[in-house]
């Protein structure tokens, strides 16, 4: 007895219809794996860290800013060389590198967050299921574990024709 229903759709719209009708029938734990961000992926209830991404980028950016400031002020003071009649700590001139490092760190931390959060979020879907995904295969899975038998039947009914055998 599989613990999970796996349905495969060639057409994103069909997958969307399936997900919507699952939701109509009270099945709310459907997962979608899709080759592209078709509308269907937005119709599934979602829990994740996506809200934190902005904050991560902000913190990353501020870290970059702090690093740049420390690097510029610290090294300039350590050397204490006068150039061009400018002060040792020349804020106007330092602004550029501060900006660049802020952006670099923000971008890099955003990317890292993406990688980590994605890895975290995909753990809910079995690897064998994810491997089914291709340009013509959008996979909808419904975990049956601990589910009301009525809902199980409803889910089976909706996904009916598209169900696929998955050997884990």
């Amino acid at each position, binding site marked *: 007895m599989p613990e999970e229903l796996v349905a495969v759709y060639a057409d*994103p*719209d069909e997958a969307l219809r399936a997900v*919507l009708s699952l939701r109509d029938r009270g099945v709310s734990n459907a*997962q*979608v*794996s*899709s*080759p*592209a*961000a*078709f*509308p269907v*992926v*937005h119709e*599934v209830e*979602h*829990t*994740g*860290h*996506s*809200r934190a*991404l*902005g904050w991560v*980028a902000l913190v990353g950016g501020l870290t970059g800013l702090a690093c740049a400031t420390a*690097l*510029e002020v610290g*090294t*300039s003071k*350590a050397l204490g*060389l006068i*150039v*061009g009649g*400018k002060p040792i700590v*020349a804020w106007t*001139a330092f602004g*550029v*590198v501060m*900006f*660049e490092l802020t*952006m*670099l760190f*923000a*971008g*890099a931390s955003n*990317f890292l*967050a*993406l*990688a980590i959060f*994605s890895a975290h*979020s*995909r753990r*809910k*879907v079995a*690897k064998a299921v*994810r*491997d089914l*995904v*291709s*340009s*013509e295969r959008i996979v909808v899975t419904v975990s049956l574990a601990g589910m009301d038998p009525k809902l199980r039947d409803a889910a089976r009914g909706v996904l009916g024709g598209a169900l696929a055998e998955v050997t884990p």
Partner: protein
Amino acid sequence: MSEVSLAQIEKDTVATMSETTWRYWLALGIALSLVALGGWAWSVALRQGLGITGLNEPVMWGALITTFVFFIGVSHSGTLVSAILFFTRSPLRAAIGRSAEAMTVFTIMTAGLYPIVHIGRSWLFFFVLPYPNQRQLWMNFRSPLTWDVFAITSYVTVSMLFLYMGMLPDLALLARQVKSWRRPLYRVLSLGFSGTDGEWRIFEKAYPIFAGVVIPLAVSVHSVVSWDFAMTVMPGWHSAIFAPYFVAGAIFSGIAVAVLLLSGLRRGYHLERYITPKHFDMLAKLLLAMSLVMTFVYATEFFMAFYRGSKAEMEVFRWRATGTYAPVFWGVVISNSVAPLALFWSRARNHLPTLITISVLVTVGMWFERFLFIVTTLARSFVSQNWGNYIPSWKESFICLGGFGWFLMLFLIFIKLFPCMAISESMQSQHAVDAAVTPEASHA
């Protein structure tokens, strides 16, 4: 976009990677030849010294720095255009965004070589990097060249990540689809991305943030490069207009190069279904707009020089238009300001050979435009006793050509290894188009 099945998109894209025509080999052969030529010329410079260039007393920067600025300029529009199209939700982005981003990464990788090539002691290049050393020395953060180091490394890093990030869904897709040695490569590179709805949510949140980082960074990088000149005291360089002028020029030359690359890709891989006249029309309009901006900038520069009344500056601009380099100057005016005016006519915009011709003119014109403002200022600065001239030597020109070969080589290798169109995004926008055609289908 006409009726294309989603599988067809993937198939066509994969074809660009797996099918290799004689045109590809010819292009790669040319690229490698140029790289060999440039590499040899550089090796002579390393062994003997920069005396092999045409540089001399007043003109200490020449063709090499011109090429650097030129490639930085070209690098601009790729990422910038891609990010802007992303924010405007333009359906045009899917087909051209990837190549534009790749163009950015590779031009900036090319540009980054030139400061190393052009300095007198290339082997001590690491002196400009911040790292703790036994000398207890650091770099001068007041120098625009130090800003350059940070700006360019940041920009190349962020552009690469941007390209890579956008490619993640495609790599995931390909890791499951293709066979052969590519499979483990894509598997590793895809970072396990599998297209679950959770991942898509995160992706769709992270990508705009990243694009938001990219745009100001892109603008800043070319501003910083312009400050290499504007922060000096030299007549013709020391001007507040330089940052916007450079950014505009960068986009201008970038679009021209993008037109050339895209038309090449389209022709070489029969991507007419994806890279459509609509794309070229859009690029042509952009090109025209930037050309007008550039014309305005040129006029402003001259106006400012003569309005301000600085003797040295007036002399630089007078000489630029009438002196030794006058033919170059007027050539630049024709290619950058006059020729693109043809794009006011939609027939010119939609006639690919015309557009390509104008793009070639603009590409060459922008290189010479950079050459002009660098050389004329140096050759004609304050001390009239030091006035001089500069003509690049052959070996120096070879090093510059080598850069073009290098860029082309990297790009050609890239399109063999990675999808040059965003598969996932194309499918998404194709689906959106389909949905728009049959609205009842999506909202049943």
